[in-house]
């Protein structure tokens, strides 16, 4: 062990993708001597699929990562080439930011940040083996024999890793986030290649080592569309998709920054019946249909052959042509992933308006990889099987850059907390989309690559992107991941927002300007297609409306915070765009938000009821057999978590509650 080949770190991160970068950076920032391993420098913060960050749900994750001191938002703000706020026709709770990132600059900037980070080494070597302190052979055999989702036993503690050339690195904690590299296999029609994404070398030895150690390894699959040369496409036949005029950055640190960049457009086109005919005629040549692929793919990201064959009545499917960066002439064809042979791909892509003469520089492919059953993880992302091993990203069965980065950040924080003997950071479902994501994974498990969606969150009105810092920055500060600078900014923003809300709740204007203001916004500025009778009625109502506070006025749908400036005075403060949104939302949605908070309070009861990790579920009378097994396997920390396990019914939860109450009574009479 103490040979000259042994190097010593406090935290080791395997993989340098979006999860690995967050884990490595946060561990080093929290004071740990940290090493990140990648098989190829190119893989650092690589975007092997679409060149965009954010979108519905995902944009919320990036904000939360940022609020907790992570890097993804900051790095996107440095490198985006188009920015768009989605869902603006809906309410602010589901406004979602999405940016087209410059793939190469994103990678370059992240690489620079890692290089500049103190205590952080980036090592280019393939990790082939875990070093486990005195492994429990019986437990390994038990785990190997167990069915998926059941009976995960602790086999020991990880003390380091070995690379393929035999070098050993010791570590107090290890974070694994291997993405699609672990046991990677690429499929194009009949062609099967052992490979990582984008033709980079895969990591096969570690996957085998995990199997030997009895980890519940399984295969998932995902796919990516073709890349085409920019100049080979005909943009006159496609519809231009521009970025927003007003750019909102991801990071709270960039709140008041002005962005003056030339945004690059994306392009919209559609498939047609000819495209579909070619695909259907060649369906059996697709790797997905040939039976070569055993891995499970995501339902929300189907290949074009999947879409065409499952929804045969649809005459067209849309696709977006997205630039991959400023210094590259590659274009990404969003919505058109495939595992059909190259010649078939060529045939069907060229039926699409604008793509007739497309030059394909990389064909679409499907990729299959090793991942672990997330039910083998604790809520803090530590493995139940191997102590001090933390897991993140696609390795845990998720999909997407943002999902990976979220877990990487939490896994990194918790690796440090574990080393320091502190409680892990476990975010609740009413605190963050990150909480929803991780709770879903470790409590319900997943049968397909997991993607976040706003509809997975019960408390959508609370989990907005404008208030991510309100929800998380204090927590991040307390847990050690948030810098003093960010924390001070957060305090300042909170103070400003709260003061403004209080001011608006009491401020009024004189009755004449008030009525004139309302008339202008609700009647004079009404849309052209508005019902004239309705407007007339409003006009009459308006004349009778009494004087209200600014907070009351803001509750009217047609009035925005910016509008109020017209009747305000010098007491109106200068606010940043997030601050304005937060003020507006806090007042506009006051009632709904309170309703959700009540819901949370009701359920908080269940979340506060702790379940001991050593509880013997078999001894609890009335639990159904399935519930007993599931609870014994997953070992939820609270009754709330237990209630979300599939196979645990409300009746079982009642039994648990009755049991806990009995326990409490017994212990209090002792």
């Amino acid at each position, binding site marked *: 062990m103490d040979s000259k080949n042994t190097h010593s770190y406090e935290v080791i991160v395997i993989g340098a993708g979006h999860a690995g970068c967050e884990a490595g950076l946060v561990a080093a920032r929290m004071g740990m001597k940290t090493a990140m391993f990648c098989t190829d420098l190119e893989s650092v913060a690589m975007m092997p699929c679409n060149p965009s960050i954010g979108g519905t749900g995902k944009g919320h994750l990036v904000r939360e990562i940022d609020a907790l001191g992570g890097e993804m938002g900051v790095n996107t703000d440095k490198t985006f080439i188009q920015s768009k706020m989605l869902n603006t026709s809906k309410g602010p709770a589901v406004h979602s930011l999405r940016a087209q990132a410059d793939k190469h600059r994103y990678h370059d900037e992240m690489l620079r940040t890692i290089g500049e980070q103190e205590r952080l080494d980036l090592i280019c070597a393939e990790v082939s083996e875990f070093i486990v302190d005195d492994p429990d052979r019986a437990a390994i055999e038990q785990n190997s024999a167990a069915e998926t989702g059941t009976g995960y036993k602790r086999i020991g503690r990880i003390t380091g890793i070995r690379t393929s050339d035999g070098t050993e690195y010791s570590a107090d904690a290890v974070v694994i986030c291997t993405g699609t590299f672990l046991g990677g296999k690429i499929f194009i029609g009949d062609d099967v290649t052992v490979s990582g994404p984008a033709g980079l070398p895969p990591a096969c030895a570690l996957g085998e080592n995990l199997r030997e150690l009895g980890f519940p390894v399984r295969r998932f699959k995902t796919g990516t569309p073709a890349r085409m040369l920019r100049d080979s496409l005909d943009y006159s036949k496609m519809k231009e998709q521009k970025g927003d005029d007003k750019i909102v950055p991801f990071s709270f640190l960039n709140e008041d920054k002005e962005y003056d960049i030339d945004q690059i457009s994306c392009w919209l086109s559609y498939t047609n019946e000819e495209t579909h005919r070619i695909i259907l005629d060649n369906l059996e040549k697709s790797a997905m249909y040939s039976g070569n692929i055993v891995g499970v793919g995501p339902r929300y990201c189907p290949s074009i052959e999947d879409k065409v064959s499952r929804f045969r009545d649809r005459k067209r499917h849309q696709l977006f042509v997205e630039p991959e960066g400023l210094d590259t002439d590659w274009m990404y064809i969003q919505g058109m992933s495939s595992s059909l042979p190259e010649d078939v791909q060529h045939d069907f892509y060229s039926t699409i308006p604008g793509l007739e003469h497309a030059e394909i520089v990389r064909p679409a492919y499907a990729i299959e990889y090793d991942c672990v059953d997330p039910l083998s993880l604790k809520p803090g992302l530590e493995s139940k099987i191997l102590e001090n091993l933390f897991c993140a990203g696609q390795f845990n069965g998720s999909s997407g850059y943002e999902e990976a980065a979220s877990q990487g950040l939490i896994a990194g924080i918790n690796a440090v907390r574990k080393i320091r003997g502190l409680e892990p950071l476990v975010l609740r479902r009413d605190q963050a989309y990150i909480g929803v994501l991780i709770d879903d994974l470790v409590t319900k498990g997943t049968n397909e690559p997991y993607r976040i969606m706003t509809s997975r969150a019960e408390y*959508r009105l609370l989990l907005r992107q404008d208030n991510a810092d309100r929800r998380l920055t204090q927590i991040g500060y307390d847990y050690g991941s948030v810098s003093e600078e960010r924390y001070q900014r957060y305090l300042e923003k909170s103070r400003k927002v709260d003061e403004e809300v209080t001011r608006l709740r009491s401020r009024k204007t004189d009755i004449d300007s008030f009525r004139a203001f309302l008339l202008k916004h609700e009647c004079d500025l009404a849309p052209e297609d508005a019902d004239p009778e309705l407007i007339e009625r409003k006009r009459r109502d308006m004349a009778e409306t009494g004087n209200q506070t600014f907070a009351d006025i803001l509750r009217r749908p047609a009035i925005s915070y910016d509008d109020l400036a017209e009747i305000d005075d010098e007491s109106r403060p200068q606010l940043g765009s997030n601050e304005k949104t937060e003020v507006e939302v806090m007042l506009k949605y006051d009632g709904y938000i309170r309703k959700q908070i009540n819901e949370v309070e009701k359920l908080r009861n269940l979340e506060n009821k702790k379940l001991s990790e050593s509880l013997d579920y078999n001894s609890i009378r009335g639990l159904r*057999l399935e519930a007993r097994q599931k609870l014994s396997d997953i070992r939820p920390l609270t009754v709330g978590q237990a209630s979300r396990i599939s196979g645990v019914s409300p009746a079982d939860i009642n039994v648990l509650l009755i049991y806990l109450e009995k326990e409490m009574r017994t212990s209090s009479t002792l």
Partner: protein
Amino acid sequence: MNDTITAISSAPGEAGIGIVKVSGPGCKDVMKRLMVRFPEEIEPRHAYLSRVSRNAADPEAEIIDEAIFLFMEGPHSYTGEDVLEIQAHGSNTGLKNILQAVLDSEVEGVRMAEPGEFTKLAFLNGKMDLSQAEAVIDIIKAKTDLSLSIAESQSAGRLGDKIREIRETMLDVLAQMAVDIDYPDEDEDFAGDYDGTALVSQLRWVLNDIEELLDTASIGRIAREGVRVVIAGKPNAGKSSLMNALLGEGRVIVTDVPGTTRDTVEESVSIGGVPIVLVDTAGLRDTEDKVEKIGIERTAQAMASADLIILVLDGSQDLDDKDDTVLEYIEKMNNEHLLVVINKNDLGITITEEDVKEKLPGASVVSTSLVGGGVPEAVKAVADAVTEMYDIGRLNAREMNIVTNERHVRMLRNAEMNINEAITMIQNGDPMEVIELSAHYAYDSLGNIIGEEVGDEVLDRVFSKFCLGK
């Protein structure tokens, strides 16, 4: 560790056969203790005839009965645990002896079952859904044939099926909303911007179904609890006399001082086979007396919840302003089931049936003297009125899904309220994520009725119905 619970599970009263039920791990031990002839091996669902002894040490010494022992092995039993049924002669004393013998058997953890505990176990062990379990409790409590038939159909899952059907539609609505929020980029021809009109019409459809179920709730309640009859009238008109006449005994104090019966009094009674709940009210009149005012408010509340209102008028006096106050209240109630009793016709009648019909066109009227031998006449009028209502309920109950359970009514009302909110918000152009919230609360309330767990069904529906991009 687990308890073994026991109770007499047949209805009280003399009957041919009575049953003592035992559930829990100790069933076999109970058999061993009680059976004089204990077979070497017990086969489940096999009837063993044996004499019953309460002295295991010397069985022949204390024989208490002869009974059939039927053992059902868990989980294939009513409660999902081991169950033993001891079928003995149906006398109360005999059954109590057997029950006592079970409790005295010294089998570990044996105890009396709490009311409804067998059914609770069956629910907890996943043998039935919540609406079925509640229906079983209703069957156990059912007082009349009619309520039994409702409870039976609910137990067979008919209400559950209806709720599931409504939830299916709601699931489509929620999936549509989820796509609208989570896939803003989707092709507008297929998902994209939501079609408010279509959503509203789907929600209206659901609302209609829920309202139909709610309409049955009063029929259901009549069947379960009886017709709720409220007796109203100005002080000293003879309300309490009528109530006593109907009860056949002097339970309510009758005096000549107006305003004695200040609180409402409820009594259950069966008239011509129809169960009714009689509510006597404080004399209704405008008053400054605070105590009496509370009584009047209660009366108004009682009338609001009445199936049948009986107005008692003092026929020996002209209608005065006190009567007018009462009449005003009754008009406000807008209850079509109204019976007016003109009392004290022995004291010289001044109010005629025509006078009343003029004021209350829909009412049935009877003129009598409650203290002067007119009781049978009054009782008959009441009996006729309640029987008619009851028969309508009975007729409908056979054909319809009827909601009888208070909790179900509450949940349905909650769903109704939330769907109404959602519709209003769609029409106001409120943001989708807020509308979705109301729709989701409605969906959860409906799920609550059948006790279904909430899972990923919305997302499953999204992916099976919509072809989505990324």
